[in-house]
Structure formats: C-alpha cells, structure tokens
C-alpha cells in the first residue's frame, strides 16, 4: 500500500516542530545562565542558536504558507513497514547486545534483516547470517581487537 499525503499539511506540522524546538532551546539556555557580553556563560551560545533557529523557522513558515499549492506526493514507499521493523530491530539489538553478546545478538539480527518477502529460503538466510556474523567477529574482534561484547554466555 502506498501512503499518499498532502505535503503542505505535513510541512506545516514540521514547521511547528521547528518553532517548538527553537523555543525550548532558548528557555533551556536561559536556565543554564547566559552570562554577560564581557563574560559569556554556558547558555550564551545555545541561546544564540535558539534565537537564530526561531528566526529561520518563522521565515520558513512565512515563505511556505505564502506560496505553493497543495501537492499530493507519496510520503512512503511500498515497503514502508520494513522501515519500522528495521528501526525496532536495531533498537532491540542495542538493548540486548551487552546481555547476550555479539555473536548471538548479531546472528539473530542478521536472520531478521536477511529475511525479506522475496527471500524466504531459511537455509540461505541462516548461511548468510552465520557468515556475516562470523566474518565480522573474526575481523573486528580477533584481528582488529575491537572488544565486541561477550554477554552472559561469555562469547
């Protein structure tokens, strides 16, 4: 399924996010102490960036709300669900890596990533997952001594 949306609507939402971000930066910078011009404090520069961001965001809002027609554009490709599953799998990988160790976690992740609707042959997926995990382990951990995490099983 192709998600089709109206870009202008989402662009406006994006501009609101920019404005909120810039205002949050300004407020948080004031709390850090701005200092004086003769002795600028830690919040001085972030406050300046917040102000500039606010200015550019307002400018973008003004320019984009003034012109341009509502444009129907595909927001996501046909396999957009794969984006979500990839993000989730990478986040889970980060959370369990030190617990299960590099070999097990990476093997599981690779199994998941190599599996696609076009490629469902388990033998091929397992071989690719074992090879990618094994070769990177040998190169990075053994040869380059990158100290990849061992996990509770000690490997």
């Amino acid at each position, binding site marked *: 399924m192709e998600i089709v949306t109206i870009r202008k609507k989402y662009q406006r939402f994006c501009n609101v996010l920019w404005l909120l971000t810039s205002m949050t*930066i300004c407020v948080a910078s004031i709390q850090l102490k701005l200092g004086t011009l*003769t002795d600028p404090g830690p919040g001085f520069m972030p406050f300046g960036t917040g102000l500039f961001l606010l200015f550019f965001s307002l400018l973008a809002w003004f320019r984009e709300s003034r012109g341009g027609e509502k444009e129907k554009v595909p927001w996501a490709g046909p*396999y957009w669900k794969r984006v979500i599953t990839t993000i989730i799998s990478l986040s889970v990988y980060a959370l369990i890596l030190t617990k299960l160790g590099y070999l097990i976690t990476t093997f599981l992740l690779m199994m998941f990533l190599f599996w696609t609707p076009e490629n469902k042959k388990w033998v091929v997926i397992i071989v690719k997952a074992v090879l990618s995990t094994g070769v990177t382990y040998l190169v990075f951990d053994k040869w380059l001594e990158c100290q990849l995490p061992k996990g509770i099983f000690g490997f």
Partner: protein
Amino acid sequence: MDVLIQLLEGFKIAFIPVNLLYAFVGVFVGTLIGVLPGIGPAGTISILIPITFRISPVSAIIMLAGIYYGAMYGGSITSILVNIPGEAASVVTCLDGYQMARQGRAGPALGIAAFGSFIAGTFSLIGLMILAFPLAKVALKFGPPEYFGLMVLGLTIVTYLVRGSVIRALQMAVLGIFLSSVGMDVMVGTPRFTFGIIDLADGIGLVPLVMGVFGVSEVLLNVEQTLSRQIFETKIKGLLPNLKDWKDSKWPIVRGTLIGFFLGVLPGGGAIISSFVSYAVEKKVSKHPEKFGKGAIEGVAGPESANNSAIGGAFIPFFSLGIPPNVVMALLLGALMIHGVQPGPLILKQHPDIFWGTVASMYVGNGMLLLLNIPLIGIWVKILKIPYPTLFPMILLFCLIGSYSINFTTFDILIMVFFGLVGYILRKFEYEFAPLVLGYVLGPMLERSLRQSLILSDGSFLIFINRNISAVCLLTSIILLLTPLMPSIRKRREVLTREVEE
C-alpha cells in the same frame, strides 16, 4: 628546493610497506564503497575510524584519505554502468556517462573518468604543496575573531550551495551548532542538555551522528522502495579513450581541475559542488550544448576531474587553518584529534611527517587507483550485482559495529538509530545534512572563538568589524545570505535546482 626535500621525505614515509598497505586498503575500500550505492565516504570513514586507533596517525590519515579519493573513482563506475550514483559527487556523471554506456562506449567513459581523475588529483596535490605553507604562515597571525569569521563564511557557503531551500539549510546548520553544545561546556565545564545521562557528558558522538543521518537513513529510504536494480548489460571494451576522445576531453579536464581545486579550498565547497559547477561550465562553453545529456564525453571528463581535484583543495584549509571544509574532512579532523594531533598552522611545523606523508601517499594512491581500476572494472561490475537485500543488512551491521566500537557503549548505537530515524523523516521533507554535520563539527570552535573574541573586546561585537579578515568574511556571508532574496538570482537558483533534479 626545500619543498622537494620535504616531498622526498614524504615519499620515504609513503613507501614504508605498512603505509603502502594502508594506502592500498584505503583506495580499495574507497572504490568499493564508491561502487556500492547506499554508503558514501563519510559513512565508511566513520566505520573505519575505530580501526585507526591502533595504528600511527600517519598511517591512519593515509588510509582514510585513500577512502575519500578512492570513493570518487568508484562512484563514477556506478554512475556510468547503472545510472545510479555510487556517491553524491558522481550524480552528474550519470547524465552523459550512462548515455555513453548505452551507445556501447562504456569503456571510453570509464577510461576518461579514471584518467581525468588521475590528472586532476595529481595537479591538485601540487596546488596543495604550493598553497598550504603560505596560508599556514598567515594563519599563525589569526586570532579568535578571524577564525569566527572564517567559520561563519564556511557555514554560509555550504548553506548557499545546497540544491534546495537556503532557509532549510540554515535551519540544519544552526541545529548542528546546537547539537555540538550538548555535553560539557567548552570553556567552564558546565554540563549542558545532558538530562542527567552520563553517556551524554562527552556530547553526541560525531560517528553515530554521521552514520545515522548518512548511513542508516539512506538504508531506510532504500528498503521502503523496491529492492531490485537493473544493471545495463554491455560488453566493456576499449577502455583507453581514442584520440578524438582526448581532444574533446583535454580542456574539460583542465577546467574541471581548476574548478575542483578552488571550490575544494573554499570552506563549504567540495567534491559534490565542484562536479555540478564543472558540468554547468562545460555545457556553457561547449559549441554543442545540445549533445549534453546524450553522451557527451566532456560531461564525464569535466565533473570527474573536478570531484577528484576538490580533494587536494580541501586539504588546504584542513592542514593550514585546522578548519574542515566538508563532512569527510571533519571526520579526518576527528580521527587526527583522537591521536592527539590538532590540524592547524602548527601541524606543518610540529608534524611535517603527517603532512608530507599524506601528500606523497596521495600521489602513490592516485597511481594505484589508475592501475587498479582499469583492469579491475570487471570485478566492480560483479560487485554491483550484489542484490540490495543482501547488501543493506551488511551496511547496517558495519554501522552498528562502527558506532559501538568508538566508546564501547550501546548508547552510541541508540544515538545512531535515533539520528537515522530523524534523518529519514527530514529527508522526506528535502532537508540536507551536510550543513548539519558541518555546523556540528565547527560548533565548538565557533563558540570558543566567539566567546574569546567577546572577552578580548570587553563585550563589543565591533571586534569582528575592526579586524579586516573577519569583516570581509562576515560581509561576504551577509551578501551570500541576502542574494537569494533578489528575484533574478532566486530564479536562477530555482532553474539550476530543477535542471539538476531532472
């Protein structure tokens, strides 16, 4: 004479077997990632930075620089044979290179790209040797206001030269500067925007950030599309361009070399911009502009020379001022700083081995590329046939290992994934990331020079106007920022953007 002696010393360093090996690994990996769409030199250098921890700084920069210019060579192969640019600096090569391949002239297109790159790369190195020292001498007299002016100019140029909206590019650059302020304050050590997270005390890592916005977001954009790609099936024969090809290409190579070199020197310029400018110039000066886009060899020779020449140019502000003019150079700066070496005017005196070793190794590397690429084109074409469903898990795995092994913390992986998602969403809205990363890298230097300048001047901003260099830089920045408001220039930018997108 002194330069020649120093260069000979450099060659002694470059010809040490281990350095030759690292140069080879660099150009080989560079060509490989240049060939493979989806991972550019910035992502690859990020992945390989941890590997350089255990080698000397000279070997490290020799390998990393090799990746950079190797990627420029490799990118042209994908552009010509698949019509997909392996990396951004080869986008324009698609226009005529692919058409040449369709007409059965893939060989001469690949050949002229390789020879043009070699010639341009060699000449830009001569320029680097000539200009780096005088500029470093001048730079020794620079104070915080001058550095501030230069960095503002660099950021302005990079935002001005983006293909899309200048305002969006400015938003990204400012956001990058803000992100660099996360962590300990550069002058008094107060924690800023860390939310009590210990892992954020040292700030957001450059490598997870770059891998996220360039590597992961690119993969995410690709996996949501169909994963197959077509390779133009053609027999590649006659890689040596004929006499007519050389005649048509000689001036585009010369012009491309000069354009690439000078745009490379400019902060914010670089290989991508110079290849576009070179193509536009060639089309403008050609007696047959209608042939462009239909297989004109000038459209391959010029941009390919320009993107390689830009690399030599980019090393000038890097070595003599300590200012990285683009994202890749920012990563090289980070890599050297990890080794305790601070690029800048003093590096030429304190670490001449690094400067001359790098220069000499680039001569050697350019030669290696010429020897490697022409006979190995068959192998690169085979690599191109690796299906994306097999390729993208590997790219993600290298990104995961790269971001983990910087600090051995999974927090960096989460940072990378977060910026991958942010990058994916912002790319949908046509935001570009070069200004963000350059803003992030220059942010701490910019803040330090601003605060030091204000302390020096007792809080007066007039110090930036009273100093000539900073005044010129800031004035140029203001002019550049105001020009898109002029209707004629805005229209020309819009036409250019449309042409490039078409």
